[in-house]
């Protein structure tokens, strides 16, 4: 590559990158650094920020609502993500066979995932209504008298976990793609060696799709750290703070109490946790790409 050609390459690269470069500085880097600075200040958005050192961070660790939000979010993550994984994989395994109406089943299971966001929250707000809702009606078919779900602090978080299982179809599609990547020859070889279906699954299929499993585990965790819509639409964090999710806490302290400094400290803790998880997924997905294509694109 000649010197002139090198300069030409650099020039055009930066020309094409320029919209993103502006976006990167203005909408990503500046906010990240700015919120780091603000997290060391007392700031109500109207008056200029006042430097307070680590006060926001020490307050956070002594703040009851902060810990409440951490516990709610972690409990939601730890329960819902593994169940989603198991169901997603289970459904994918059911569909990864020659079965009549396979296309119909696959579409039907994915369909609920298209009702995401507020529409889904409104629907399940009705489903969990203890007087007229669908959930307790279905439970009554089996002679079970359901609880008050969203209105009871002991059950509200579990209601939201049940609701999260409704969109397991997305994970199922990822698992189906993973299962298609398992060479049929490996399965046949295992069966010829006399391994049963269960043993073949455990010793051949499961290790082969473990990258997909890990990827989904981490992405699922990152997603559930950021639950907001359900808390905002269905419960407003209640009753009795039983659904006081981390991002809902962050939103409330920033935009209801106008404590931009303290909320920026909350934001930075979230940022660090998500970045750690992202670094993990990148390490894993490198291996994953290698695995399937063997290319290095």
């Amino acid at each position, binding site marked *: 590559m000649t010197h002139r050609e090198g300069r030409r390459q650099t020039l055009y690269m930066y020309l094409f990158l320029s*919209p993103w470069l502006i976006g990167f500085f203005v909408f990503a880097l500046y*906010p990240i650094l700015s919120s780091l600075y603000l997290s060391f200040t007392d700031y109500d958005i109207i008056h200029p920020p006042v430097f307070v050192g680590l006060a926001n961070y020490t307050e956070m660790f002594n703040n009851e609502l902060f810990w409440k939000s951490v516990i709610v979010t972690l409990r939601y993550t730890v329960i819902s993500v593994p169940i989603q994984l198991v169901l997603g994989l289970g459904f994918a395994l059911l569909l990864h066979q020659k079965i009549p109406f396979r296309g119909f089943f696959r579409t039907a299971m994915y369909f609920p995932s298209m009702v995401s966001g507020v529409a*889904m929250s409104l629907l*399940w707000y009705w489903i969990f209504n203890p007087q007229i809702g669908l959930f307790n009606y279905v439970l009554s078919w089996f002679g079970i008298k359901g609880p008050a779900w969203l209105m009871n602090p002991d059950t509200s978080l579990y209601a939201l976990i049940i609701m999260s299982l409704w969109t397991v179809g997305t994970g199922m599609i990822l698992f189906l793609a993973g299962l298609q990547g398992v060479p049929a020859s490996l399965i046949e070889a295992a069966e010829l060696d006399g391994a049963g279906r269960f043993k073949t699954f455990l010793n051949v299929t499961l290790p082969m799709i473990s990258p997909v499993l890990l990827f989904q585990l981490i992405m699922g965790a990152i997603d559930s750290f950021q639950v907001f819509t359900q808390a905002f639409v269905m419960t407003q964090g209640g009753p009795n703070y039983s659904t006081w999710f981390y991002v809902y806490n962050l939103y409330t302290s920033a935009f209801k109490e106008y404590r931009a400094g303290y909320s920026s400290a909350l934001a930075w803790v979230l940022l660090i946790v998500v970045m750690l998880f992202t670094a993990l997924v990148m390490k894993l997905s490198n291996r994953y790409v290698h695995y399937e294509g063997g290319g290095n694109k």
Partner: protein
Amino acid sequence: MSTIPSTGPHSPSSKVRRRRKFDAVRVMSFISLVIITFLMLLPLFFMVSTSLKSKREMLKFPPTFLPETWQWSNYKDIFDTLQFGTLYGNSLLIGGLTVVGTLISSSLAAYGFARYRGKGKNIWFMLLLSTMMLPYPAIMIPQFILFSKMNWIDTFLPLIVPAFFGSAYNIFLLRQFFTTLPDELFDAGRIDGCGEFRMWLKIALPLSGPALATVAIFAFIYSWNDLLTPVLYLSSSEKFTLPVGMASLTSSRFRIPPWHLLMVASVLAMVPIVTLFAIAQKRFVEGIVLTGIK
């Protein structure tokens, strides 16, 4: 017809036994699939049926499977009582412009990463990757302060303008696609006297239809479902997006929530997504597999 039992490992009888065992698993799977699908579709069924019930009937327990009287006027009422037409229009406008912005800016940056070997490329690419999972809640406060200094509060600009400056995930996705395009095409273009910008427009983009469609679909869905950003920026009700307007339906201003209208809103909110799915099912599935985005 009777078969004579024969011996040996490949005898027909052992084959038959094997197939029968296999069939039992498949029958069980089929039955489980029917039950699971029934449970998954039940909420959707009631969503549609409740949306057509009268105010009296929606409060009945147990809920009726099908409306006693089909009240199609609910679908008209929601446009009168909730300015649903305005909400829908706002969301479509914002979603449409987000798609346009994302396609242009992300494909430009992706082309830069895929086709040139400029100085510092690896550093920028690492930075791109590291912002891929940047959680919006972590940066929303400084962004809010920035946009309020620009007097953009209660306008659509904070919801649209960032899309015109690229989004990391989409850039990464398109860059992966562009690197698979053969170099010869661009060499031929250069010999024909094609400028760099024209090669992006006339060679790279027309060959990337499927990848661009995937990006467009997911950019639209993200914008269509987003609640947090419009909640921060939009304050006057005629500017609300669909999710913001719908979220207000559960607020305490209703003594009894208008359940039937809630369901009408949910059904209508689903329509564009289902339409996209019907048109481009393959792109949908591809997008999920490539990004893992829900």
